[in-house]
């Protein structure tokens, strides 16, 4: 097979997976194709990396539409096509949780600062991606693999090992992996777990009475000190919600107040929304998590708000 044929085959797999019904059988076929030759694997990596990049670009398009609707004359480039890809307004979680656990010498600690992000690969092949302002500890022995999320948000891609369960603890709640990809966000005594692939068991410490649920792909569980709620979200919504893994924030009719909160998780220069009228305006688009400037530009030129820069903060108001 020539390189071009391999590239086309990779593109074909990716479009099948992205745009059409996709079963476990399809995934098995794709895995077999990927494992058949390094050429295939590399071609697929290349194709999917660039495709992922187009996602964030496409999601920027709605901001352009808003500009055209504004009184400032703009040349329309993509007439009629600029509908927002459904994205999720992410509820911001600020602040840290007190660690409930006594640190033991066998733990390894990992942390990121505000605006930071880090991917670690553990000895068993498990991949953990830390979002901004996140701290976790790992402890592995022959019987179990344990991760304690002390604060922040992390994505887990777990190498399954039936003999050594993989357990994530967050604010007293416990997630036990059954071969899976999932994310956990923890802050202000609120824990949110989103499951992308595979299965995992969630055990809640809510309200003193233990509850548990087996999570399937698309399941999102939110647990607080006294409640636990299970909902379901489409796969594309979940993957957009994980935009931070590529360093972007995706807003879809998110209020300015919530968008600012989300930005503030990633940046030391804080966004402050000055009044409630501005706070309730909604915004659509994709932004680099560290590019507060781009966001302020949209507020100024698209929403026609005032942007004032002060020492440590940027104030947006009517």
């Amino acid at each position, binding site marked *: 097979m*020539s*390189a*071009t044929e*391999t*590239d*086309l085959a990779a*593109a*074909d797999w*990716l*479009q099948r997976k*992205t*745009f*059409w019904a996709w079963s476990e059988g399809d995934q098995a076929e794709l895995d077999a194709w990927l494992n058949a030759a*390094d*050429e295939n*694997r*590399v*071609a697929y*990596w*290349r*194709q999917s*990396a*660039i*495709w992922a*990049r*187009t*996602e*964030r*670009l496409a999601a*920027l*398009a709605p901001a*352009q539409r808003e500009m055209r609707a504004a009184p400032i004359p703009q040349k329309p*480039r*993509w007439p009629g*096509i600029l*509908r927002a*890809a*459904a994205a999720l307004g992410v509820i911001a979680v600020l602040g840290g949780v007190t660690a409930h656990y006594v640190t033991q*010498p*066998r733990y*390894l*600690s*990992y*942390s*990121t600062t505000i605006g*930071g992000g*880090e*991917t*670690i*690969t*553990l*000895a068993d*092949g498990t*991949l953990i991606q830390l979002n901004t302002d996140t701290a976790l500890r*790992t402890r*592995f022995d022959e019987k179990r693999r344990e991760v304690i999320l002390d604060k922040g948000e992390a994505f887990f891609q777990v190498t399954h090992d039936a003999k050594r369960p993989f357990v994530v603890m967050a604010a007293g709640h416990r997630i036990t992996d059954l071969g899976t990809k999932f994310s956990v966000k923890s802050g202000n005594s609120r824990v949110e777990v989103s499951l992308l692939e595979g299965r995992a068991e969630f055990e809640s410490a809510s309200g003193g009475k233990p509850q548990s649920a087996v999570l399937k792909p698309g399941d999102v569980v939110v647990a607080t000190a006294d409640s636990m709620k299970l909902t379901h979200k489409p796969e594309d919504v979940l993957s957009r919600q994980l935009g931070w893994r590529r360093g*972007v924030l995706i807003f879809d009719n998110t209020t300015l107040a919530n968008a600012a909160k989300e930005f503030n998780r990633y940046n030391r220069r804080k966004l402050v929304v000055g009044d409630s009228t501005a706070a309730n305006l909604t915004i659509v688009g*994709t932004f680099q998590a560290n*590019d507060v400037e*781009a966001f302020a530009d949209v507020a100024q030129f698209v929403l026609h708000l005032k942007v004032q820069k002060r020492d440590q903060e940027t104030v947006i108001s009517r």
Partner: protein
Amino acid sequence: MVETPETNPRGTAMNAPEVEAWFVREVLPLEAMLMQYLRHNWRDQSDIEDLRQEIYVRVCQAARKEIPHPAKAFVFTTARNLLIDRARKSNVVPIEAVSDLDTLGIAVDTPSPDRSLIARDELRKLQGALDQLPPRCREVLILGRIEGLTGREIAQRLGLAETTVSEHLAKGMHALTDILLRESIDLKRRT
């Protein structure tokens, strides 16, 4: 990143996610430059894509044992060695034609071109790339990527067979990848 290990959990054999992340982060941004290098140094232009693929496979196989640093020097050394190999075997191109990296002006330690580009420049780049696609591919990709339609919905919207939509999507994605990876050099010049 703060790591306080007594024993480092890393440092064992590299696995696929790590190699993939390295490949995407360090190697792919070099593609425009690599293609330029190959075109300058290999007479038969119909071999270029195969050479590129062979280089990618070789560097990823090496990365599985140990992630090479810096990536750029490693990629271009691999490229040069491959061209020399091929030239010897096929007897097509004299070895002298394989230029030194220095004479090509490829500095091996400069930062990769497009990592720091902000989103707005990237949007312009994507629009440019989409504009270069054949009309049907472009239309289908826009419906899928921006309007968020599934393959089936695209077929219904455009009154096309699903297999046709599939083909346009694959062709469009393939072309878009080539365009986006190969224009990064122009962007570097502009910025």
